[in-house]
């Protein structure tokens, strides 16, 4: 069963001058994770805001948990959890205050709200800082609390809009393990990200979007296959470059490419590990000892580049996004 269905969503701002979503369609199978991957300004946030009932599309329709988002937003709100790009908790209140307040707003009674708050604080390792105002939290802690707030009533569908944007590597790692825990628990998750690595790590399926539409869709592996197979990469001493290129080209059957700065020779291969072993054997016979050797599968960066013709993370800066959000309010 599909937990999330979006069909032909169109959303324009500034009287049509900016087309944030351009006939976007996607769906998420119950109990799976879909990552919506795209650069800033691709329409990720607009998509989540529509599915989470914060925004009405110009046209198209959407169902979440079997409920029509446009016709019955109030019912959708009962089954979703949303954790936004900006940590949407009250900074002045403590972590405990926030969770208890949101619990009560989900219509748990006071006692149940407190019990649930304490359970979630414990689960997200925030018990020690529960009584401190959020503004004293680190970025990672704040995101965890934000996520906790969206889990108060065990939502059927969870939306995470760029859950790790702006976090340092440690915070990101912590956030990932928390999300992985959730996924193991069987939540249906739609996650947006501009980090290819994140989509790769967390998602069952990836929908790549650019300029408001889905341009590719599939598992991480399938998308990588779409771009091409594996590449053999070997780094050697300068004097061995010429000979190594010969060996690699022979085994690959394709022209070997040299990156002079890195002294790295690479070529596409179809036989994977076998090609790697053969190459090493030949080099060993020739008395060449590689400095580094590896079999690289194409990264999602490569995927994005080959799908869109531009790299994923080179685009519009953050203020532009806020600018759009402001326009969105008008």
């Amino acid at each position, binding site marked *: 069963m599909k937990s999330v269905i979006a069909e032909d969503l169109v959303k324009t701002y500034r009287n049509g001058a900016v087309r944030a979503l351009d006939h976007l369609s996607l769906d998420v199978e119950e109990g799976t994770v879909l990552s919506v991957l795209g650069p800033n300004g691709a329409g990720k946030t607009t998509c989540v805001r529509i599915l989470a009932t914060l925004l009405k599309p110009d046209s198209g329709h959407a169902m979440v948990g079997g409920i029509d988002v446009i016709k019955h937003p109030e019912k959708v709100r009962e089954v979703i959890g949303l954790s936004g790009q900006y940590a949407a908790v009250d900074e002045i209140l403590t972590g405990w205050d926030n969770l208890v307040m949101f619990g009560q707003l989900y*219509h748990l009674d006071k006692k149940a709200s407190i019990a649930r708050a304490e359970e979630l604080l414990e689960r997200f390792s925030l018990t020690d800082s529960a009584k401190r105002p959020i503004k004293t939290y680190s970025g990672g802690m704040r995101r965890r609390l934000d996520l906790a707030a969206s889990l108060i009533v065990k939502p059927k569908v969870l939306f995470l809009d760029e859950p790790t944007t702006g976090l340092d590597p440690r915070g990101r790692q912590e956030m990932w393990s928390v999300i992985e825990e959730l996924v193991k628990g069987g939540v249906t998750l739609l996650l947006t990200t501009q980090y290819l690595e994140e989509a790769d790590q967390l998602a069952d399926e990836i929908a790549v979007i650019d300029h408001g539409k889905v341009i590719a869709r599939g598992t991480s592996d399938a998308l990588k296959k779409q771009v091409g197979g594996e590449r053999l990469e070997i780094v050697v001493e300068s004097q061995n470059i010429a000979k190594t290129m010969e060996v690699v080209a022979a085994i690959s059957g394709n022209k070997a490419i040299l990156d002079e700065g890195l002294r790295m020779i690479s070529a596409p291969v179809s036989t994977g590990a076998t090609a790697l072993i053969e190459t090493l054997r030949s080099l060993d016979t020739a008395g060449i000892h590689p400095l580094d050797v590896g079999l690289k599968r194409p990264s999602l960066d490569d995927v994005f580049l080959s799908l869109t013709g531009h790299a994923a993370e080179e685009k519009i800066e953050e203020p532009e996004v806020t600018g759009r959000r402001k326009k969105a309010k008008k």
Partner: protein
Amino acid sequence: MSAFKDTMIITQRQLRLLTRVPEVLIFSTIQPVMFVLLFRYVFGGSISTDQPGGYVQLLMPGIFVQTVAFTLAGTASGLAEDMKKGLIDRFRSLPISQSALVLGRTLGDSLLNIVVLAVMGIAGFLVGWRPTSGLLNVVIGFVFLLLFGYALSWVGIFVGLSASDARVVQNVSFIVTFPLTFLSNAFAPTTGMPRALQYFAEWNPVSTMVAGCRELFGLENQFGATAGSFPSENPLLTSFLYMIIIMAIFIPLSVRKYKRSAD
């Protein structure tokens, strides 16, 4: 019923801010206290009045009205801040009554006003303010002030939802409330103003509020009544009408704006 509960939870949040950040209370009372001292001891000496008990009797109602008028800025900037932080998005994604957030905020801000007015009342008492109309009328006077603050907080909601930045909101609110509080009978007689300003001052809701409070605190309103006009003759009634008009315009406007704020 659940809409009422939701509203109360939001109101509680407003009040909790007071216990979490007591500085807010200090800063929202420090400015009016400074005004009291300034007008009582610096300007007050050169404002002639034959008011028994002195200028301070006329001054304090003006200060009270000014204090509640600044509710507008507090409500507006608090809401703008919540919008910016994305907190409003979270509230809107919850299965709660959509008006609860704005309603709860106006109620919470009005409850904060009770505390602020209490502090101001004590400060006034310390510098010689002595209402002569009896406890009941004084209490009615304060209820009257709270209602005015409540009406204005709806203007604050609208300003907060309309602006994009909390600092802009602060400035806009200041630009609105500053002339209103000074082009009035709050601190000095309007009779000294140019004719055109006198009309403005007489119809100004701040003036009618101040005149109304003076009446309730047992004073003759010496600072207004240049032409025996309707507002200066019937300050309480006029103030009530103003509050009703403000709420009739800004409650539906704000609720509508809030519901549509994302589209």
